[in-house]
């Protein structure tokens, strides 16, 4: 038996029928075609499937789709709706992404990290990404990618404040 859920995914309100055993990752990938979210293990080991549920990093491979009823889900595709997110730019420009398979999960975890710590120390970045495995980079370029994004967001914030000041 399927149940109806109401969920906001990447800003779109949806009403969808999901089976009780259906995992969020399968719902996103197979049902909605949002294949940016990746499956890299048999459940809960690698972090590649990380999405944001009500802003919190969540493993979509361990979350039943029915459990996100009434919540807001953001996937990697949802970050670039107004052009690429600074994190996406950072991973591109600083080569935080080589094969790229861990990248969507890594970026979603980093997004939650930056929401909490807009100007993170390297230690905070390490702690924030400790659940996400990468086999290519050795992680240093990932730290730099996140730092790039933090700096860019800070600049934006400063510019925003300046504009606001000028408007006053």
């Amino acid at each position, binding site marked *: 038996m399927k149940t109806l859920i109401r969920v906001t995914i990447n800003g779109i309100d949806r009403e969808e029928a999901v089976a009780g055993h259906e995992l969020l990752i399968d719902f996103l*990938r*197979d049902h909605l*075609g*949002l*294949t*940016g*979210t*990746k*499956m*890299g*293990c*048999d459940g*809960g*080991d*690698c972090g*590649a499937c990380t999405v944001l549920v009500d802003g919190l990093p969540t493993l979509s491979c361990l979350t039943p789709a029915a459990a996100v009823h009434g919540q807001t889900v953001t*996937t*990697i*595709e949802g*970050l*670039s709706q107004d052009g*690429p997110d600074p*994190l*996406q*730019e950072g*991973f*591109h*420009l600083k*080569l935080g*992404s*080589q*094969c*790229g*398979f*861990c*990248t*969507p999960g890594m*970026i979603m975890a980093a997004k939650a990290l930056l929401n909490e710590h807009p100007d993170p120390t390297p230690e905070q*970045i*390490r*702690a924030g*990404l*400790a*659940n*996400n*495995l*990468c*086999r*290519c*980079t*050795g*992680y*240093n*370029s*990932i*730290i730099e990618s996140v730092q790039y994004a933090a700096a860019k967001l800070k600049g934006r914030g400063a510019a925003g404040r300046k504009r606001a000041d000028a408007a006053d």
Partner: protein
Amino acid sequence: MTQAKDMKGRPRVAPEALHQALGQGGHRFIGKPQPLIDGMDKATGQGRYSADFHFPDALVGRILRSPHSHARIKSIDVSGALAMPGVRAVVTGDDSDVTFGVLPVAKDEYPMARGKVRYKGEEVAAVAAVDAWTAEQALDAIRVEYESLPAYTDPFAAMVEGAEQIHEHRPGNIEREVDTEFGDVEAGFAASDVIVEESFQAPEVNHAHMELSAAVARWDESAQRLDIWCSTQVPYYVHKELAATMKVDMSQIRVIKPLVGGGFGAKTETQSYELICGLLARKAKGTVKVVLTREEVFLAHRGRPATWTKLKLGASKDGRLQACAAEVVQQGGAYGGYGVVTILYAGALLNAIYDIANVRYHGYRVLTNTPANGAMRGHGTVDVRFAFESALDMVAKKLGMDGVELRKRNLLHTPAMTINDLMVNSYGYPECIDKVLEVSRFKEKVGRLPYGKGIGFAGSHYCSGAAKPVNRSNMPHATVTMKLDTDSAITIFTGAADIGQGSSTMVMQVAAEVIGLPPSRFRVIASDSAVTPKDNGSYSSRVTLYVGNAAIGAAEHMRDVLYQAAARGLHVFPNDLELVGEEFRVMAEPHKTIAFNDVVELALEYEGTIVTKGTYATPKISQGGSNYRGAGVGASPAFSYSAQAVEVEVDPLTGKVTVERVTVAHDCGFALNPLSVRGQVEGSVWMGMAQGRQEETNYENGLPLAPNLLDYRFPTIMESPQMETIIVESNEAGGPFGAKEAGEGSLAAFLPALANAIEDAVGVRIKELPLSPERVYAAIQAARKGQAKPVAPIPMQEAAR
């Protein structure tokens, strides 16, 4: 002073083309950091990997695997599965009786077992069903009757006389024995003042690429054709093996390699699941998707073999190495795979980094009832390099000499042909050593850090492609084509498999540099057998040198086409022109210009679409000697070099080793893209750390104990050290713009540098990997009890705990 202006008021610049011809101009599109051309696709989640190809009609393929390490298959009954609603096809060993295997000398596998299974996890049957649940149920309904046979998970047991033969054609379960001697090793040892003879061990390790191996195959029944998307480093080999095992013509198959989520060697052979996917699709007359679970990736992996190395090094008082004798046993697993090459690499690359006149190598590749081992980053060389560079420090200690000094006294004199016929031209190893010493301040630290802290040094090297491909032919090693058409884009076609290392970006950069047009004018189409030229694939670090050179060839032809068309348009000779931005201009009369778009139109007039081609073949002289068996392995047009200093903190109470800092210098000839060179080098060093500190695959009753990423435990971001990465450019004459290997050579040096650092920190020499807390703790305890080595007293606060 005002700058000269041209007719249109633009600043007059010195002719760039002339500058380049004179060697004064800098490079425009190479030699500086270039983000990957598919980087944004990956960061936005738009890029597609094999499992991301979604077809509404796709069936789910699942594989039944052997629960036995070694058994005869008495019968397989699939009737129960076939009778289930929703099951569209079932295949077994009966569906393909053609053997495959990456080496022509070792085609010993069937897509699914026939007659016998040889390891737990071997493919026995497979089903395609409407959904995963039905497919799983169908697997449960397949009845297989086995008759158990003696099994060996240990190569030494498999080699015992009278052991059950795993393959009929391999008596004694020896896949290959190699015995070579160059020079006179006994005389070398006789001339030595110091001899070190030690045994080293390294366990099997897994590539653990992040993407779950996946394939999607579409069989078109009316056309009798197969399209397959799969996660491979070698689309061409997959193409060949699919055709062979499905008994169809290669023209009936199209192999497409989309984005690949890491390879590290795991995908340098055709894998059974790819063939099974094709067989299922044909039998189901439709589309089948096979995505392995992580457990299956571990069960059927082709990792780095467990390796036992007995190494004897002799040196004279002056610090010259006089002789080397190595005996190596590799646990090959149940099938040949790359094994013959792996065991040959282990011996061949004892050479080509230091100058040793006398080298003997005795290698055994042994078949066992465990997953077949294969190629993994630093193929065959890593575990032996661990032994060698560890032993070098032991020799140095006996000589009362600094280990780095010992290495410096045994450098090659290049250009050189080694005693085993390897050609070494560019040799940046001395510079790597010096840079690492300088940046790490090694000499100030070694032997002088407080107890528990240490620094270690080691070097390594690797080939830039196998000069003789495993499938011998007279075709060029690499071909690249380029198309100029009315879209005013230059489309580059390459079969090179980009697996995240950035090969497509490299090809674009090389083309942009040769032609002089910006990256935005280029589009790279890669790895689609219906469209792109054949390429052997991404292994042995061949792509930059081979495909880069082929790209230069195609780009030079394209550049000539464009310059000739522009020259016609401007009524001058081609060599009067330069390309500035997207405009051709006459150097002597810079107001005479023609835009690129107009040049394209001129070029296509009376001609139509223009296609150019470039090829690369390795020079004969680089292909190794012909006077001994196995001479083709190890031979390469160029070798990369790496030096590393690793700084550690060892907690003597727990044995835990923290890697605090790594300084690495890698000689890549010329960094076409310093961004990706750094990425490759750091990734290699890190993977060396992962193997050195913590990774191992142990078997219990033939099953791996850690068949998931949680238990296998490769390092997270929390335990990954800072790195100082130095790029050394020795300018390889045979490489594209001087470039050579960057993606593997730095892995091996980390392991011995770590062991050497631990010795510096706590005075114990550990010869078994990984250097895990248990092992380090035990070694410290043994040393304290045996008083074998001077060990610092336990600090008071430790004793108090």
